[in-house]
């Protein structure tokens, strides 16, 4: 046991003190912070600051134009005088306006497209504001023309709000936010499995092609060396995750305080404008900030650590077994293929899970140990029945233990075979050899 600790210590420390580790560990949260910073800056500057002159030849929208005014930033002014379009197009700028909105004469039954003249394109928010407001007015006028009461006509405009409460109960569910968290956790597990898995494989292959392996296994059992390596590298991954968590929360908090006003404004705009435009980066960003309150963060983080640890053991063991079969550094790529495929397939399963977290495909793939680390992490933010999660966890733990045992049987043979290129069939046979 003492020797395993010595191995774990070396595997861990030799990677932690590397410059590349420090670099990625510090750089990733910084880059994320920088991205957030840019998104907030962009988010607040894209808010249009416009003064628009409105020419309404139809005379249908006079009273709606006032409603479009949004404080001091966005001002819509109806033109009282009757000036032909051609001449006002040339003079609106000199009158102090940034843009001209032309509403041609039309019949409410046959709306004609409006035209926006300006030096620049209007922002998405401005555009949807104009369309939404004027469409609403048009609809109400149509209903009135059919003889319906105006208050009824306004009533019909009210949208349905869908409030979601999950079993976890205490927090209000929000599908978009859950999807964001599911996506990020699933993707992070995917990256971790591939990254640290291949690190295990390279480590094993290095010791073998280096020939130091024979010196080491004349001091410790091959199984001890394999487990020590897997654990040591796994701890590197865990350390990195925890550092990211701490740094990430730190950066998040910093940005939240520094840009308190910008964020509040963005939130206001989001609630003020209906979701006509596509979900923008701003929505995702807001989702992240608000999301901490809306998803069960504790369950996500503990789930993440669990699925990372055991998913990593499950796959790390396979990577170690295949690494032991490497006889030439060039083999690494082709030999790692059979292990990376299920990981990549899991990412596709995750995508379908995010769309339908409770489909039978999602449930099954969150049970099967090959895909459960990624798929279950995508499901957890949506709320998973605790029984299903426990079943999935038990299956994964048992499979990891089995996989370590199986990998040990391959590893002890593989590390001693030098020279010839090894096929998967041979690796399979090694399981049954005795040494």
């Amino acid at each position: 046991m003492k020797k395993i600790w010595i191995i774990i210590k070396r595997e861990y420390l030799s990677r932690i003190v590397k410059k590349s580790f420090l670099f990625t560990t510090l750089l990733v949260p910084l880059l994320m912070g920088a991205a957030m910073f840019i998104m907030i800056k962009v988010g607040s500057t894209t808010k249009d600051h416009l003064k628009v002159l409105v020419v309404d030849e139809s005379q249908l929208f006079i009273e709606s134009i006032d409603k479009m005014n949004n404080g001091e930033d966005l001002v819509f002014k109806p033109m009282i005088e009757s000036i032909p379009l051609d001449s006002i197009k040339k003079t609106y700028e000199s009158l102090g306006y940034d843009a001209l909105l032309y509403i041609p004469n039309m019949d409410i039954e046959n709306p004609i497209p409006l035209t926006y003249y300006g030096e620049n394109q209007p922002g998405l928010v401005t555009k949807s504001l104009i369309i939404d407001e004027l469409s609403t007015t048009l609809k109400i006028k149509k209903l009135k023309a059919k003889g319906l009461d105006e208050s009824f006509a306004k009533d019909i405009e009210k949208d349905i709000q869908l409030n979601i409460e999950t079993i976890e109960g205490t927090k209000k569910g929000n599908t978009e936010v859950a999807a964001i968290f599911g996506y990020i956790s699933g993707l992070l597990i995917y990256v971790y499995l591939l990254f640290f898995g291949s690190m295990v494989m390279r480590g094993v292959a290095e010791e073998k092609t280096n020939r130091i392996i024979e010196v080491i296994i004349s001091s410790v059992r091959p199984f001890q060396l394999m487990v020590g390596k897997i654990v040591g590298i796994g701890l590197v991954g865990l350390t990195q995750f925890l550092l990211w968590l701490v740094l990430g929360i730190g950066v998040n908090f910093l940005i939240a305080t520094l840009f308190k006003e910008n964020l509040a404004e963005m939130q206001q705009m989001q609630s003020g404008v209906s979701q006509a435009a596509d979900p923008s980066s701003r929505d995702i960003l807001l989702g992240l900030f608000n999301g901490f309150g809306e998803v069960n963060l504790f369950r996500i983080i503990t789930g993440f650590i669990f699925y990372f640890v055991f998913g990593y053991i499950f796959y790390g063991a396979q990577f170690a077994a295949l690494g032991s079969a490497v006889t030439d550094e060039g083999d690494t790529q082709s030999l790692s293929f059979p292990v990376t495929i299920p990981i990549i397939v899991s990412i596709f399963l995750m995508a379908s899970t995010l769309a339908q977290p409770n489909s039978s495909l999602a449930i099954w793939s969150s049970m099967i140990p090959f895909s459960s680390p990624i798929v279950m992490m995508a499901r957890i933010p949506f709320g998973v029945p605790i029984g299903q999660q426990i079943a999935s966890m038990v299956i994964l733990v048992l499979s990891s233990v089995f996989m370590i045992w199986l990998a040990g049987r391959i590893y002890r043979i593989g590390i001693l075979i030098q020279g010839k290129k090894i096929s998967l069939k041979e690796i399979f046979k090694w399981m049954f050899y005795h040494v």
Partner: protein
Amino acid sequence: MELLEIKNIKKVFQKNLALNDVSFSIPKGSIFGLLGPNGAGKTTLIRIITQILGPDSGEIYFNGIPLKQEKINSIGYMPEEKGLYKKMKVGEQLLYLAQLKGMSSKDAKTQIRFWLEKLDIVSWYNKTLDELSKGMHQKVQFISTVISQPKLLILDEPFSGLDPINANLLKQEILELNQKGTTIIFSTHRMGDVDELCDDIALINKGQIILSGTVKDIKNQFKENIFKADFTGVEESEIHKHSHFIRKEDNHFLFKLAEGQSPNELLKGLISNGFEINGFSEVIPTINDIFISQISKNNQI
């Protein structure tokens, strides 16, 4: 007293008989040569002794007790294919390997200092292997093997790739360790080194021991009663006429004793022929001769 007794070891690799009923013993404090052509089963045998592999049948006794995994710390092994971590510093590497042999960090550091000073390479402590030459690697590898002060040291081709000066240096270190009581198994194809260093040998071919014992006994066993003599003032043709003469080799004349004849009688005969003798000695076969003759004889069977 035997340090290691190997009894009836058998090992089969997928229908391939690697070791067949191998038995021999290694006296405590000896330098033991494990010899044999490529593919004879030496590495397999060494791997069984170092517990990397287990035998299919047979036993190994270490100090009279069946060899178990716990004894692994008492065995130092330097494989033929040398290898260390390329990106790790020499000092850290030695410390790691010593700790894996069960040494405390404190003892290991004392030993590292001792050996680096002894081989005059203290300045390498903070260098990575990448920065050192191949010959330097070998020195580090040697230190890593002996640092845990093993009772049994297994060296597989320890001099390969070393220049004569460094090979000699290493040879002196090995002899010094042996004098301090370390038993050494030495596997090599350089027969000159075996003649020079080994007290005992075992010759292995096709998975079987075909010869084992002390170097002295084996040489005695294979000597062919041939004597060499040097002469002055004698016509070479005269010598060639002598009934016991067989051939000339490196300016020495070789004579073979007849059945039941003593060297003394041969010498008397030569003198009575009027030859003036400058030197007279028995021709002892070298390990190289024995190796070649025995292996080719064994291969013909």
